[in-house]
C-alpha cells in the first residue's frame, strides 16, 4: 500500500466531529414512537429466537396433548391438528423468521454490492452487461421469481433463503451502482486514483464506506419483506420442511381448520404482522434519520 493512498483513505474515512448541541443519531432515531416500537419488537424477536430452546414449554414437533385444544393453562396458545404445542412452535418459528430475514438479505447485499460496485466503478460494457442482467431479474414479480427459483432448487429453508437473496439482489445492485457512479467522479476519488489506488482499493476503501448508510437503510426495509416472502414460500410448501415449524407453514396447516379452530391461524399471523410492522417502522426511522434531505424536509 502506498503512503499516498493510505493518506487518501484516512482522509476519506476520518470521522467528522458532531456539532455541539446537535442531537446524536440515536436521539434522532428514537424521537419517533414508531422507531422505538420497532426497536422493542426487534429486541424481543431476537431474544425469543435466541432463547427458543430454553423457554419453549414443549418439544415443538412432539404431540403433547389432544388435538386442536383451545388456549389454556397447560398449552397457553392451544394445540394444533397433531396435538403439538402452538406456543413452542411459534417460538421455534421465530428462529426461522430471523434466519430467513438476516441470511437472505445478507446474501442479497453480498451479491448486489459486488455487482453494483463493479458496474458503477468500471462503467462501459461491464456496466451494460451487469445492469441488463439486474434489469432482467427486476422484471419478474418478486414472489413469482422467488417461487420459480425455490421450486427449481427444491423445498427447504436454505433454498428458500437463496431464492429470496437472488430476488432482492437487484435492489442493492442498482442502489450501489448509482452511488458508485457519482462517488467515482468526486474529488477525493479522483485524487485517490491519481495517487495510484487500484480498482479493488477504490471499491473497498473509497466507494464502499460511502454506500454503507444507504445499504443499511435498504436492508432494514428489505428484511421484513424477506420474512413475508419466506412465510409465503412456506405457506405454499416451498419453505422449511415438515415437521419443523415456520410461521408460514403453521398458517398453511391452521387454514385447513379455520372453522373448527380459528385461533390457530391468529397466532402465527399476528407474529408475522407484529414483526414486520416493527421492522418496517424501524426501517422508516433509519431512512429518515440517515437521509439528510428527508430530515431537512421534516418527513416523518
Amino acid at each position, binding site marked *: 500500500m502506498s503512503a499516498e493512498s493510505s493518506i487518501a483513505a484516512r482522509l476519506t474515512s476520518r470521522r467528522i466531529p458532531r456539532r455541539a448541541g446537535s442531537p446524536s443519531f440515536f436521539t434522532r432515531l428514537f424521537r419517533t414512537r414508531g422507531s422505538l416500537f420497532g426497536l422493542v419488537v426487534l429486541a424481543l424477536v431476537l431474544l425469543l429466537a435466541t432463547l427458543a430452546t430454553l423457554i419453549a414449554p414443549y418439544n415443538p414437533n412432539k404431540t403433547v396433548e389432544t388435538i386442536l385444544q383451545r388456549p389454556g393453562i397447560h398449552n397457553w396458545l392451544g394445540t394444533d391438528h397433531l396435538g403439538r404445542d402452538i406456543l413452542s412452535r411459534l417460538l421455534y418459528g421465530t428462529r426461522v423468521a430471523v434466519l430467513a430475514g438476516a441470511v437472505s438479505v445478507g446474501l442479497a447485499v453480498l451479491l448486489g454490492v459486488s455487482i453494483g460496485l463493479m458496474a458503477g466503478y468500471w462503467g462501459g460494457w461491464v456496466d451494460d452487461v451487469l445492469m441488463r442482467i439486474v434489469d432482467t431479474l427486476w422484471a419478474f414479480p418478486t414472489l413469482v421469481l422467488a417461487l*420459480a427459483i425455490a421450486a427449481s*432448487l427444491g423445498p427447504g429453508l436454505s433454498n428458500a433463503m437463496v431464492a429470496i437473496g437472488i430476488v432482492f439482489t437487484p435492489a442493492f445492485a442498482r442502489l450501489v451502482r448509482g452511488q458508485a457512479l457519482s462517488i467515482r467522479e468526486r474529488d477525493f476519488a479522483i485524487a485517490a486514483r491519481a495517487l495510484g489506488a487500484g480498482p479493488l482499493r477504490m471499491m473497498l476503501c473509497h466507494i464502499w464506506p460511502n454506500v454503507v448508510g444507504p445499504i443499511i437503510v435498504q436492508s432494514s426495509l428489505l428484511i421484513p419483506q424477506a420474512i413475508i416472502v419466506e412465510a409465503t414460500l412456506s405457506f405454499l410448501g416451498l419453505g422449511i420442511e415438515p415437521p419443523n415449524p415456520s410461521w408460514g407453514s403453521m398458517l398453511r396447516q391452521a387454514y385447513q381448520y379455520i372453522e373448527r379452530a380459528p385461533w390457530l391461524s391468529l397466532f402465527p399471523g399476528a407474529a408475522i404482522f407484529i414483526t414486520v410492522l416493527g421492522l418496517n417502522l424501524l426501517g422508516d426511522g433509519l431512512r429518515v434519520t440517515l437521509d439528510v434531505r428527508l430530515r431537512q424536509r421534516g418527513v416523518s
Partner: protein
Amino acid sequence: MARYLFRRLLYFVPVVFLVTVVVFSITMLLPGDPALAFLGEANMRDKVAYETMRKELGLDRPIPVQYAIWLGKAVRGDLGRSVRTHEAVTDALAARLPVTIELAVVALGIALVVAIPVGIISAVRPDSWLDTTATVMAVSGVALPEFFVGILLIYLFAVWLRVLPPSGYVPLSGGLWPNLKSIILPALSLGLTLNAVTMRQVRASLIEVMREEYVTVARAKGLPEREVIRVHALKNAMIPVITVIGLQVGRLFGGTVVVETIFAFPGMGRLAADSIFFRDFPALQGVVLVMALAVLMCNLLTDLLYAYVDPRIRYA
C-alpha cells in the same frame, strides 16, 4: 416523445430476450426428468419409450439448441404441453388469464377508490385524527401478508357472518352478483396492501407539492383552497403515484399465486402453484414468462405515461 419511445423500445428488446433466457434456465434446473414425467409411472421402465420421449421433447439436443427451439415455438405461441393435464400450455394460460386479470383489476380498483381520497385528506389535514388513523392503517396494511388477510376475511365473512363464499370462482357468465360475490374477498386480500402503498404515496407526494412556490402563488392570488388542491397541486402530485401503481402490478401478480390458491381461483396464480406442486415445468415456464412479460409491458407503459405527463423526463 417519438425519440423517447424509440429509446425505451430499444432498451425493452434485450430485456425481453434475457427474460426468456432466465425463464428457460430456471425451469431447466427443476428437479426430475421431464421425459419421465410425461411417460408417467406405468411406462417409466420402458427404455425405448423413454428415449423416444426424450427425442420428442428435444432433450437429447444441446441446451442452447433446446433454448432456440423453445424460443422459436414460444414466439409462435406454442409453449408446449402440460405434463399433468397434457393440455396445450397456451390454451391453459388463455383460459386462466382473464380470471387473473379480472381479480387484479378489481383489487386495483378497490385500492385506488380508497387510497386516493384518503391520501388527499391525509395530506390536506396532516396530523389530524383522520391522518393518524389513515397512516396507522397504511403502515399496518403493508405489514399484513396477503394470505393472512385472506384467511382473516374468510373467517369473518364466510365462517362467522356467512355472507360470502369461502372459495371458488363464478364467471361473469354466471351472473354479475354471483361473480362479484366470489371475487370480493380475494380482491380485498390483494387490494389491502396495494391500498396502503398507494395511499402513503398520494399523501407524501401531495404534501411535497403543497410546499411548492406555485401553490403559494395560487393561494396568494386568492383562489379557494379546494381549487388550489384540485387544479394546481393534485395534477402534479399524481405523477409519482402513476409510477407506484405501475410498479405494483408485479406485486399484484405475485399476490395472485397465494390468493388464488387460498380461494381456489382457476387463474394463472393457481396454475403457477399447481405446476410447482406437480413439477409441471412447461406450465410453470408459461406462467412465469407471461407474468414477467406483463410486468415488463406495464413498466414500459408506466414510463411512457410518465414521460407524457412530465415532459422533463423525455427531454432528460
